């Protein structure tokens, strides 16, 4: 599985950090549920089942590291620290969000918190991320650009072109593929000839690894190791995180998978697995879990109130940036 990627100074997470990760995943899950409860939720790509990917990656990034992602952006934005209220307002098209209702989930951005932005065109952010990484290199910021994309983007020429230039110019770029097994309805093996996604990085001499994307601690540890390597000037790297998409492609897309498959995927629910794990290790108990749920519920309720009272965007204001 994991290829050798050099030394890492990463320490195992302590229980405070691990409880934070659990709470962060719970927030992501609850937030998306609240989004679907909106009277007009819009067109959303949800991350249910992929929470450990977003939370694990963000646990490994520094604040200065620009994160770019695909249109499946809600979990990544929340995990990066975007406040739930403004995010919910943005997603339903209100003016209280970071992009004043213009971006929605497909183009969400908030560079001030290290969330450089989503891009709704599959694969569209890959070469942009290479340019963002190049700017870090030229300006000697010490930051590492990180681009999160889906397995669907691996069939696009954009990935080949990006891997090539990133390797040639030794860019501080960490490419992370969240492989949820399907591009809308098409299984990975029907859309990609190479048996493993990490094979795509090999011809470019880019170190790559593949791990279980439902294990938040493993994702955080491996990402930290790769990020450290890249930050040290050793060039780009490629991670494949295998996970399960528990919802359909979007809230408006027909689910083509049968109930047998969907039930089996529930066994890979990262929130459930982590909760079980922390209970087993004696870190989590019923009381703590109830407290955590209460705090998350309060945050969601406040976010819903924020989004409800946020104004609709003014067209005149929007035109100023057109």
């Amino acid at each position, binding site marked *: 599985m994991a290829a050798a990627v050099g030394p890492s100074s990463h320490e195992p997470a302590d229980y405070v950090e691990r409880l934070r990760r659990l709470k962060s995943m719970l927030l992501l899950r609850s937030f998306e549920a609240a989004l679907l409860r909106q009277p007009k939720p819009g067109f959303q790509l949800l991350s249910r089942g992929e929470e450990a990917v977003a939370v694990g990656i963000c646990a490994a990034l520094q604040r200065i590291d620009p994160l770019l992602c695909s249109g499946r952006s809600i979990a990544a934005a929340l995990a990066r620290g975007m406040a739930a209220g403004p995010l919910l307002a943005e997603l339903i098209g209100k003016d209280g969000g970071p992009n004043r209702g213009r971006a929605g989930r497909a183009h969400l*951005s908030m560079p001030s918190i290290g969330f450089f932005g989503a891009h709704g065109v599959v694969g*569209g952010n*890959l070469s*942009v991320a290479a*340019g963002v990484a*190049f700017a870090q290199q030229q300006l000697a910021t010490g930051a590492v650009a990180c681009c999160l994309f889906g397995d669907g983007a691996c069939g696009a020429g954009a990935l080949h072109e990006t891997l090539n230039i990133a390797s*040639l110019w030794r860019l501080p770029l960490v490419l992370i593929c969240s492989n949820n097994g399907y591009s809308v309805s098409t299984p990975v093996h029907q859309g990609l000839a190479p048996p493993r996604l990490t094979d795509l990085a090999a011809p470019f001499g880019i170190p790559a690894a593949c791990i279980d994307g439902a294990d938040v601690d493993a994702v955080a540890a491996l990402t930290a190791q790769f990020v450290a390597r890249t930050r040290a000037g050793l060039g780009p790297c490629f991670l494949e995180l295998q996970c399960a998409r528990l919802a359909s492609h979007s809230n408006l897309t027909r689910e083509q998978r049968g109930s047998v498959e969907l039930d089996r995927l529930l066994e890979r629910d990262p929130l459930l697995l982590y909760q079980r794990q922390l209970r087993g290790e004696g870190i989590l108990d019923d009381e703590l879990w109830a407290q955590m749920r209460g705090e998350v519920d309060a945050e969601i309720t406040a976010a819903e109130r924020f989004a409800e009272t946020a104004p609709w965007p003014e067209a005149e204001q929007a035109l100023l940036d057109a």
Partner: protein
Amino acid sequence: MPRVFFREALSRAIAEEMEREPRLFLLGQDIAGHGGSYAETRGLFERFGPARVRNTPVAEAMTVGFAAGAAAAGLRAMAFITYLDFLMLGLDALVNYAAKLRFKSAGQLTAPMVVKATAGAKGQGPTHAQCIESWLMNVAGLTVLAPSTAGDAYGLLKSALRAPGPVVFIDHKKLFPYGGIVPEQEELIPIGTAAVRRVGRHLTLVAHSYMSVLALEAATQLAVSGIEAEVIDLRSLWPIDWDSLTISARHTGHLLVVEEGQVVCGVGAELAFGLRERVPELRVARLGARRMPVAASPALEAYAIPDVQAIVCAAQALLTRR
């Protein structure tokens, strides 16, 4: 004032702007040691070094996306696309990312970048010849420039390299052999200003890029038969200098728009309609390429694209039409 070749005007403008702005870098095919396909970057690699003058692989989509990402993250980029036809490969990054960036990020991000590409038919066949300026004019957020003289190329490129958002700077294969006057002292030409090349009272001839050269020749021929054409060189296709055009159209009452691109949804269609809205009694005609690909054969290329004689005939027809 010194006479310089069109390509020299470009390299001087770039060199001055690179001196002024250390964050400006260049990327494109064959621009480093080779000095550009038309020698328009000659000497820049030697002067500014490999960190700022970078050869790219044949990957236009990546090149444009990379430039946009780098620009959004704090650099200033100038990307060279050998032929305007090949910009089609980079349109996703240009149109979906760079042009919309300020709008979709609500002003948090911008992409200060110039994409320079060479248009025009000169014996190289269907995909090394097209003039797709009007496609680009259709994109909100893009500035489109297409000068016809060395002096304008110099002054406009300098403005483009200081512009806040993405600019497409289009030159033309047939303009490179031309010499022109470039001011000794640094001088900028504001974006959005047309130039009156010849004063006349019977009709207004509007063109851009190489067609401005032909329009001036046509005006000389028309003068022999007593027709005085006012020739306006657009220089900036977006934004359009409606004020200068309206003054001339009101004065002559007749408008002939000439372009090397196809007339369907072309530059001329936009100008004719826009000027009729401003000058309702205006009589308009347009001339452009036939609706067919540009062929490799010189005979077919000449058939497809307007020449001086075609402009003269169209002008006479417009003035005699009742």
